[in-house]
């Protein structure tokens, strides 16, 4: 069994050129090429250095608060009337989401490379807050690019980033959301390659970002796998996670990819519906090249990128990390999508049944759980990633529920 798993492992991607099957790669301007080759070189060295791993793990334990709990949700399970529902509680991390796992890893890498200035893009603001946090912790100047539309709908996070000492630059180009923030961060990086490290917030971008973000986020799946085995003596039947760029999902899935009995479900944002405006690049897009990688993208026949829409700013992105594109094509992971309305219902369902206010991003995962759990047997186990808490979203939710705060 072990040798068979190794021979046919799903966990050996990407290849040495950063390709996950036909996806991934390094589609960047020549100015950035030497830099991402250097980044890859330093990442390989860091990965092989026990001192780097030790510092990463120490910070995750004492600063982030890991391991995050694995929690059985009894009232939600009862209400859904099917499989047992468990949550990986990454919303309890410092800063309130999984994003910090990756930021700790990348800032350690930045310092190892002697970089003295940090930039990042952010959508919901969670990655911006996590980046601003690690910059404050290590005393590095921090510039966050954020679409002006997102600046408006995520005011509390903008204020948090500024409190933490970051400069938040609203981006007015394009659709004023996450993809435009990423364009602007790339423009900054290309002009400041000598001293600047770009902390990308999801498992996308040019190689080696999809790989290194996945590796840093894999702490989620490694912990969850061990916790589940310790608590129940078995592996879950189904993993569920929401997908913006795909970092929390790949972080949960990757350590389980070679466990043949474990099915996996990635949940994209269907926005107003797949036939209207949405952010489901796998369901509604086709392969193309953007932001340094080849992956599924929302685009028109000419290859112009189309606007994504989701109630959740963190899922409002027209692309997806390349490893998910590969996992979809080889069929190892299933992907589905959930509308704004379904996510809002799931948000309230978790508040009501478990006393947990989830972020709108994992509310998409919860909505998918609510659909599949009743179709499964009571002795089966679903493990969903509760990758963020909902404090940042209460204004958006109130607005949609017609409540004036």
């Amino acid at each position, binding site marked *: 069994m072990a040798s068979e798993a190794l021979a046919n492992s799903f966990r050996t991607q990407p290849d040495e*050129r950063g390709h996950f099957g036909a996806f991934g*790669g*390094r*589609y*960047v*301007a*020549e*100015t*950035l*090429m*030497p*830099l991402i080759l250097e980044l890859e070189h330093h990442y390989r060295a860091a990965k092989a250095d026990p001192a780097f791993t030790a510092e990463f793990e120490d910070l995750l334990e004492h600063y982030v608060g890991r391991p995050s709990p694995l929690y059985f949700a009894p009232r939600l399970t009862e209400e859904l009337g099917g499989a047992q529902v468990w949550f990986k509680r990454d919303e309890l991390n410092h800063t309130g989401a999984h994003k910090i796992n990756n930021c700790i890893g990348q800032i350690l890498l930045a310092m190892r490379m002697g970089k003295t200035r940090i930039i990042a893009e952010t959508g919901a603001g969670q990655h911006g807050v996590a980046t601003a946090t690690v910059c404050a912790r290590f005393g590095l100047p921090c510039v966050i690019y954020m679409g002006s539309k997102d600046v408006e709908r995520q005011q509390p996070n903008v204020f948090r980033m500024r409190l933490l000492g970051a400069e938040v630059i609203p981006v007015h*180009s*394009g659709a004023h959301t996450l*993809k*435009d923030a*990423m*364009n602007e961060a*790339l*423009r900054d990086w*290309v*002009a400041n*390659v*000598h001293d600047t490290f770009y902390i990308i917030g999801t498992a996308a971008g040019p190689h080696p970002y999809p790989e290194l973000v996945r590796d840093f986020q894999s702490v989620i799946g490694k912990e969850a796998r061990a916790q589940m085995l310790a608590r129940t003596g078995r592996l879950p039947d189904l993993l569920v996670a929401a997908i913006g760029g795909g970092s929390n999902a790949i972080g949960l899935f990757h350590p389980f990819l070679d466990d043949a009995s474990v099915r996996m479900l990635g949940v994209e944002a269907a926005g107003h519906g797949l036939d209207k405006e949405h952010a489901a690049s796998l369901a509604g897009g086709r392969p*193309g*090249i*953007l*932001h*340094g990688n080849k992956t599924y*993208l929302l*685009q028109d*026949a*000419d*290859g*112009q*990128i189309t606007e994504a829409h989701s109630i959740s700013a963190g899922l409002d992105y027209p692309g997806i990390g390349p490893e998910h594109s590969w996992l979809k094509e080889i069929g190892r992971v299933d992907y589905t999508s959930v509308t704004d309305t379904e996510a809002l219902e799931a948000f309230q369902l978790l508040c009501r049944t478990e006393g947990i206010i989830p972020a709108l991003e994992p509310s998409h995962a919860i909505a998918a759980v609510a659909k599949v759990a009743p179709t499964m047997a009571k002795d089966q186990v679903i493990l969903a990633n509760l990758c963020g808490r909902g404090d940042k979203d209460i204004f958006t939710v109130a607005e949609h529920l017609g409540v004036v705060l």
Partner: protein
Amino acid sequence: MTTRLATAFAKPHPALVCFVTAGDPEPHHTPAILDALVAGGADVIELGMPFTDPMADGPAIQAANLRALGAGTRTGDVFRIAAGFRARHPEVPLVLMGYANPMTTRGPEWFAAECHAAGVDGVICVDLPPEEDDALGPALRDKDIAPIRLATPTTDAARLPAVLEGSAGFLYYVSVAGITGKQQAQLGSIEDAVGRLKAATDLPVAVGFGVRTPEQAAAIARVADGVVVGSALVELVGEHGADAAGPVRALTAALAQAVHSARTVAA
């Protein structure tokens, strides 16, 4: 067809390479703007293919991309503009510049065939480094269209051979590590870089990014085979819109005068 590029760079003076975005401000305005570039004395025309996410471009060319797309410019319009240009100007080399997704979305062979049919001489794909160029480059070469590569201040001696491998037409030296339209690099560093590049290739070397005035263009023309001007022209289109041809021709003429006489007039 790459011979048109070779002829342009074999003239007894340095080449002026002029960039504008196709479809800016509207597709039917571009032919007159291209004609103005030729009338003003441009030796090579770079026609930008508009893209929603021009991440290597500064504010001026970003705005041009959005204007063109906002006016409904499609890839088909870009090729119609190119084919019309070729019919009117059989001798002037035309290069398409843009991003990988619009160029590869219907397949590299499709793109190369369209370029061939429209009389395009070369293609610059900004976000396609040699490491990922195993499909578009070969498809273009197959149709005798020059894949034109970029070298930058960060391209070191170890990478340069990879950049040069398979590149044709000319080598585009991006003089600043940054986006289009920003500040110009020090002349001394440009001269050093061009010297290094010319020691490594027989291709002509054209220098661009941040070149705005006839004075700057002349200074670069003294040390390089060509000078690329983009944002300054695109800003004129932004400012004058449908009436841009006149001002574009005037700036091009001043640039051409400066570039063409750079080596005969004392600095």
